[in-house]
């Protein structure tokens, strides 16, 4: 739907972005200074590339061949810069309705609906600087939505927020994306946030797009997370029951069951779990008795040598893949090698810190 192929420079930072985006939520992931914000600005029209083209559906936003450049105000991008940046001299209500007042854009959704959806009813008469970080982000999201955007562009929507606020904002982003079917591109440096919310991801480094595709496919390819120094993968499954006695949700992953402590989740809810290589233990067979309740039978697909006599095992679980980091000593002791069966042991407690709900319900 959005097709980008551009090249240019901003100051002495040169960039070249080639990628396509479909509906859903796309995370633009990379280290700081990788050119993630510039990528958003190129789409919004706030940064003009030297050459290339940008197509959005039927519209041509940029075409250096025919000298087409669509002005930012005619692109209808819901751009939310880092930390929101509200208009400080306007109340929350006037911030929200800014686009409707100064242009001919009429929101498809009533102001009351949007304020109820984003929980802004109590804030309408307040000025931006009296808002908390989370409140300001919600207002900025609402302001972008009220301009009837064709795409939402969010720059680090979670930065500087505590965990509870991050959960809150990501829930709202999911809701907006699913309810109004507006595609979302969001910039983040955190793999955890990618895992939490994104359907697709674009990996950016040194002003270039290195890789793009579904998050589940890309995470294993990215390798090491610079934040944790460890590889991570995502597995996904569906809730199929709840153990009232022990307070455990039963998650079906490729026909096997993982137990997740916590409040009851509805049957059928899809979950995604970020699994870090350092948190996965390996047993040679299922006989080992441990306190960890989550055992996944898997096949060793790849053995990757790491520095310091460590190895990383890539393990197939049905069509999905998880990763475990162990010592070379353990590998030899257990007699593990390519193609062999083994059991991956996951601690429920550490899993539950990385569980992300995929439905906005």
């Amino acid at each position, binding site marked *: 739907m959005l097709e980008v192929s551009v090249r240019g420079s901003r100051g002495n930072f040169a960039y070249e972005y080639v990628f396509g985006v479909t509906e859903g939520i796309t995370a633009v992931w990379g280290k700081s200074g990788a050119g993630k914000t510039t990528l958003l*600005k190129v789409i*919004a*029209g*706030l940064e003009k590339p030297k050459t290339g083209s940008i197509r959005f559906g039927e519209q041509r936003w940029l075409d250096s061949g025919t000298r087409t450049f669509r*002005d*930012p*105000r005619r*692109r*209808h*991008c*819901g*751009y*939310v*810069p880092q930390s929101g*940046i509200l*208009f*400080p*001299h306007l109340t929350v209500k006037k911030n929200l309705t*800014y*686009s409707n007042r*100064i*242009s*001919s*854009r009429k929101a498809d959704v009533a102001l009351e609906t949007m304020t109820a959806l984003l929980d802004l009813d109590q804030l309408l008469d307040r*000025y*931006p*600087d*009296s808002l908390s970080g989370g409140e300001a982000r919600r207002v900025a999201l609402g*302001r*972008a939505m009220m*301009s009837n955007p064709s795409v939402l562009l969010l720059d680090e929507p979670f930065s500087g927020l505590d965990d509870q606020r991050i959960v809150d904002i990501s829930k709202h982003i999911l809701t907006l994306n699913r309810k109004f079917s507006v595609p979302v591109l969001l910039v983040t440096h955190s793999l955890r946030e990618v895992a939490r919310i994104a359907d697709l991801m674009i990996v950016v480094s040194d002003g270039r797009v290195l890789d793009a595709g579904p998050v589940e496919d890309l995470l294993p390819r990215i390798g090491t997370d610079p934040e944790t120094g460890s590889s991570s993968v995502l597995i996904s499954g569906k809730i199929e029951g709840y153990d009232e006695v022990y307070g455990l949700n039963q998650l079906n992953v490729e026909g096997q069951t993982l137990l997740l402590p916590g409040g009851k989740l509805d049957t059928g809810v899809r979950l995604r779990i970020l699994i870090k290589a350092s948190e996965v233990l390996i047993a040679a067979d299922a006989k080992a008795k441990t306190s960890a309740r989550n055992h996944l039978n898997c096949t060793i697909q790849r053995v990757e040598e790491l520095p310091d006599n460590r190895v990383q095992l890539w393990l197939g679980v049905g069509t999905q893949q998880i990763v475990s980091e162990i010592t070379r000593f353990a590998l030899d002791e257990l007699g593990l090698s390519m193609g062999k069966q083994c059991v991956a042991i996951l601690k429920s407690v550490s899993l539950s810190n990385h569980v992300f709900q995929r439905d906005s319900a």
Partner: protein
Amino acid sequence: MSLVLSPESWSIIALSLRVAGLAIAFTVPVAVLVAYLLATRRFWGWHLVNAICHLPLVLPPVITGYLLLQGFRADGLFGSLLDNFFGISVAFRWTGAALAASVMAFPLIMRPIRLAFEVQNPEVLEVAKTLGASKLTGFLTISLPLAIPGILAGAVLGFAKAMGEFGATITFVSNIPGETQTLALGIYSLMQTPNGDREALTLIMFGVLTSFAAIILSEIVVRGISRRRGGGDA
């Protein structure tokens, strides 16, 4: 000591207020425009424009007055243009005093406004653009309102300066009672007059009081605005 003002003093004060009022009304819009350009654009000749704007601050006022006189006398370059196109003559008129006050006050008015534009986060305007704002709309609905504290501060400083302007005024439009004799010129004349000291003193007190009041008022207004917005952007 009597604080009762003579009719002559009243007319001096009334004239000063008229001159300063006209000067401010004329200068503030120009200063806003120039300040916005200087704050947001880097064009060829930027330094030259900036220097010209600040010149009245450092030039001896007599020289400024002399240059105005040469330019705006009936046969001067600007004087003849004004006369031919608008039928306006400023030489030795109260409007000339207002012109002198405008020129002298301009840098004082322009500087705080320029600062108020410079501290604005350019991303605020970028967001406005994506929300559908043209350049003009963005200026009118975002940049200008955010600069209001700076504009008020500049206007008050400029008003005080215009009220008390002396050197350029006396050189340009002379010291004509009822026409160009503003506060500072009136005080000067009274001090040259036998027994004029007491009357001069009341005018001086008036000058001190209005300057004080202006500064305190502007502070209150600016604070009121930034408190309503919670401050931070002034």
